[in-house]
Structures are given as C-alpha cells and as structure tokens.
C-alpha cells in the first residue's frame, strides 16, 4: 500500500511514517503543507493519503480542502483525514460527495495501532472510517421525534458501529454477537428509519450520515 502523509507537525509526521513503515507499509512521500502534498499526490499516485486538517497557512481547514482537491485530481484516491478535534462541518464537507474510500478520525486514534491500521485498510479498500466521536455527536444531536429515538439500545450500538464504517463481521466481533443477529438488527434499524437494507458498507454509512444530518 503506497501512502502519502500531509502533516505540518514534524514530530508527528515522522512518528506516523515510522509507525507505518514498521508495519511494512510503503510511505512514498511526506509533506508539511497543502501545495507540496498535492505535488506529491500527482507525482507518486499513492493508494492512500493521510491528511491533517489544520495546516499552513491559516491552520483552519486547509487539509479538508487539499483532500477534496486531491480526490478531484485522482478519482478513487483513498483519503484518511486526521483531526485534533471533532468538527462536524469538516466531516460533512468531506463526505458531501460520497463516503467511499474516506475516513475521518481523531488524531489520538493513531495510538491504538491495530484499530488505526484496520481503519486505514478499510479506507484503502474503498470503505469508510468515521470516528466514534463524530458518530456520537451526530447521534446526540438527533431530534427526539426522529426515527433514531425509536431504536433499542442494541440497535443504537449497531448503528453507531455502522456509522463508523464497520462491516457486519466487525460489528458482530465488537458486540460479541453472531452475524445473523447483526443482520437482524440492521434490518430492524432500516425498517425503523425507513431505509432499504443494503450490504455495501459505504452506502450504509452514507445513508446513516445523511439521515442523521437531515434530522439535526
């Protein structure tokens, strides 16, 4: 897996590269600002880009803008965005044009290396990884009269993991239930939310996020 890293903090950039190389992944280039990141994407054509949200010059949403631009230049490029804090608008901007091959994670998740790597692989293979914190905030903001309020606690757990981008097998492992049970919950969730069931992870996440945004 060929990776480009865009992160302005030198220590963190090198730490990330070190971690990924130690895992046998191919970090082909690192960049410390949006311009050189886009150049690196053009010349190395990586499979995945890992991008920090706050980068020079203004340290606001340069990373999101650069990620969207990189995907415009290289359609199908998987992008995993790392953020110091949860900003709803960033996640929405990023996922506005579909969620396939996209991830939005808090920076501290990187320390849980196994989970970070699984999110990275999921994104690289066209899946989605949304930080539990983002999903949690979205769920917390749903109106009481929305369909979400009719979900059982177990169904909410399943919905949260779905929204993070996990597939049925991973959800079953996390919740220590059978895949059959997960299927049953998902059918029930979609029924309660009025959505047609679908097995493709990204469409599920899109559906979930759209529904949650609409119900804000």
């Amino acid at each position, binding site marked *: 897996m060929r990776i480009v890293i865009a992160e302005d903090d030198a220590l963190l950039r090198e730490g990330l590269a070190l971690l990924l190389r130690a895992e046998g992944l191919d970090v082909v280039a690192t960049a410390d600002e949006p311009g050189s990141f886009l150049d690196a994407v053009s010349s190395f054509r990586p499979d995945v880009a890992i991008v920090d949200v706050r980068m020079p010059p203004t340290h606001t949403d340069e990373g999101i803008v650069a990620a969207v631009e990189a995907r415009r230049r290289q359609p199908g490029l998987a992008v995993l965005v790392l953020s110091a804090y949860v900003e709803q608008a960033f996640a929405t901007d990023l996922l506005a044009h579909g969620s396939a091959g996209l991830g939005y994670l808090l920076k*501290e998740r990187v320390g849980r290396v196994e989970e*970070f790597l699984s999110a990275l692989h999921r994104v690289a293979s066209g899946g989605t990884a949304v930080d539990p914190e983002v999903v949690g905030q979205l769920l917390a903001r749903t109106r009481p009269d929305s369909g979400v309020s009719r979900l059982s606690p177990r169904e909410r757990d399943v919905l949260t993991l779905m929204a993070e981008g996990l597939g049925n097998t991973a959800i079953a492992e996390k919740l220590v239930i059978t895949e059959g049970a997960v299927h049953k919950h998902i059918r029930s969730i979609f029924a309660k939310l009025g959505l047609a069931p679908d097995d493709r992870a990204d469409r599920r996440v899109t559906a979930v996020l759209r529904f949650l945004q609409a119900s804000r």
Partner: protein
Amino acid sequence: MRARGHLKQRLRVAVGGLEHVVGGLGTALLAFAALVWLVLVAVGCLVGVGLPLVPTVFRVTRAVADRERARLTRRGPEVIGPPPLPANARQALADLTVRRELAWLSLHGTAGFVVGALGITLPVYAVEDITFPVWYWLLEPGPIGPGIIWWRIDGLADAAGVSLIGFGCAALAVGLTSGIARLQALPGRRLLAPAPGVDLSLRVAELTATRAAALDAHAAELRRIERSLHDGTQNRLVALNVLIGAARRALDRNPDAAAEILDRAQDATEQALGELRAVVRGILPPVLDDRGLAGALAGLAGNCAVPCRVDVDVPGRCAASVEATAYFVVAEALTNVVKHSGATSAEVTVRRDGDRLRVRVADDGAGGADEHGGSGLAGMRRRVAAYDGRFVLTSPPGGPTTMDVELPCGS
C-alpha cells in the same frame, strides 16, 4: 440660635474656601514654574537649541493640568480628563486640548497666583492683627505694625485698634474667600474641561474604539493560546501516543527498535512539557505573581543575549493585566533588540507617574525599526492601545532605538 447656626455655616464655607485657595495656590505655583520652563524652551527654540525640549513642555503642562483637574474634581463636578497627548510636537501644538491647557497655564500661573495670594493674605492679616495686642510689645517701637499697618503703634490702646482692624479683615475673609476660590478655579473649570461638543464625542469614539481593540486583543490572545495548545502541546501528545503505539508493536518483533522509539517518545514528552510551560507563561507569567514586575523584568534581562540594565522604581502594584502587558512589551522589545538591532547594550526603565506606568526600552543598536516589518511592533501597539495607553517608537536609521510605552496603572 439661628444666627449662630448661620455664622457657623458661613465659617465652615470660608474654611473650605480657604483650603481650596491654598490648593489652588499650590497648582498656581507649579503652573508658574511650568510657564518659566515654557519661556526658557521658547527662547531656546529661537536660538536653535530648544527644539528637542518642546515635547517636555507639553508633558509638564499636562502633568500640572492633570493635578488641577484632580483638585477641581475633589471640590465639585468632575473635570473629565483628555485623551493621551499626541505623539509628536507638531500634532500636539495643533491639538485643541493642548492649546486650552497652555491658555490655562498662562492664566493660572499669573492671575491665578495673584488671586490665590490675595485669598490667603486676608486671613493671615486677620490672625496677625487680632492677636496683635498679645505680642505687640515684642516689636521695636517705631513706625511699623503688622501687615498693612503703616502707622506708629504706641501702647495697648493702639494695639487694640489694630486688633479691631483684624476683625474687619476676618469678616472680609469670611465673606470673600469662597468667592475668591471660585474665581481662582474658573479658568481651570472652563479651559481644562473638554471643549464643548466635538471633543467629548471624539473621546467617546476613541474609548469605544479602544474598548473594541481590547476585546479584539483579548480574542486574539485566546486564539493564540488555543492555537499553541492545539498545534503545539496536543500535537506533541499525539506524536507521543503514536510513538508509544509503534513501540508496543515493535516490542515483539524487534526490541532494539522499540527502545529507540521509546527514546524518541521521551524526547517528545520533554518537548511537550517545554511547550506547555511556554504556553502557561504566555497566558500570565507566574513570575509576575512570584517576584513582581521588577523581579520579572530582571529575569527577562538576565536571559537577554544583549547585556541589559533594568531600572524599575514602581511603588505598589498595578493591575495584573497591566503588569502582564508591560512584561510582554518588554519581552517583545528585548527579542527585537537581540534579533534585529545589533546593539551591544540595552536599558529598561520603568517608572510610575501618578496613575500612569511608563516603560522605556532603549538600545544602542542600528535603529531603523519598521512597524510594518513583522517584528511584532504592530502587535505591541495594539496591545498598548487596548489599555488607552501610548506607544511611541523612535528608531532613526543608524540608531539608537527607543520605545516608550505608557499604560494606566488601573489601581
């Protein structure tokens, strides 16, 4: 009874008036001294050596005028103070407030002085003359008496006559003193208060602007702190987290690599601590609390790469935010001295002048400091303006550079 009460009331008014006159005489003396200085500087200008001293005339005038304002405010309706003096002499001379102050100075330093002298002469004569029978025998017999008595005094009967005159003086004093006090205060009340209309609205606009600037400075400050926490400390911790994660993964496969990664993690921790310390210091330097402004500035000078002398003479403490601003301004100025000036020595002087804190940072470097050069000067000016203070930078090419900052103490 009513007559006695009335008399008591009149006496009280007269004594109050007398205090007023004495106070006014004090400021009149100061005004006279300032006038003398004005004349000396004016003569100096004619022969070409007085020009550099012109700003001192405005400052001295302002100081005396402020004293008179404070005195008048204690005695009656508040006399509202003016905005800070304009930065250069030409602007000051064109400034309406400054002109009115100069007019007041010439009136109060001359006529005000005469009126004040008259005002205290009456009661002095009264006391002298009334008590004359008690001590007339101490005088050599001759054509002299106390005060304005010019005729010959022979024996107790004449002395008693003088005493009667003294009572006359006392009656005059009681009747006239408060009027004299009002007369003496008149130029100050007219000329030191803001000019009717335009001036006060300008002042309100200016205070509104500085208040907005204070809020802006505050918001900018919060943004700076937020950014240094997010992009500094938090990133260090994230990097640390990444390194620990990597070390854990490496532990089984390659223990040597794990040890090396842990070394880097430790470096990251130390960096994080250092940055956190810097952020905390940037919010409100703990050293100000521990050692006061003088100690804090001495610490700054001690860490300065250019030899720096610090002279702080500030009785009491100023408001914490004002001290912090003074501290930051000096810190920034010394950074500039080290970075840009090429100076071999610098000097920091801090004085308290009434309710103003005056800070001066001077160096013997190459000068030519430019406010648009991104050397933090614009930021310093904003920070000072937020307190309705004054920021003057003199830095001709070739040097030397002097930075004067004036802040209200707020205590």
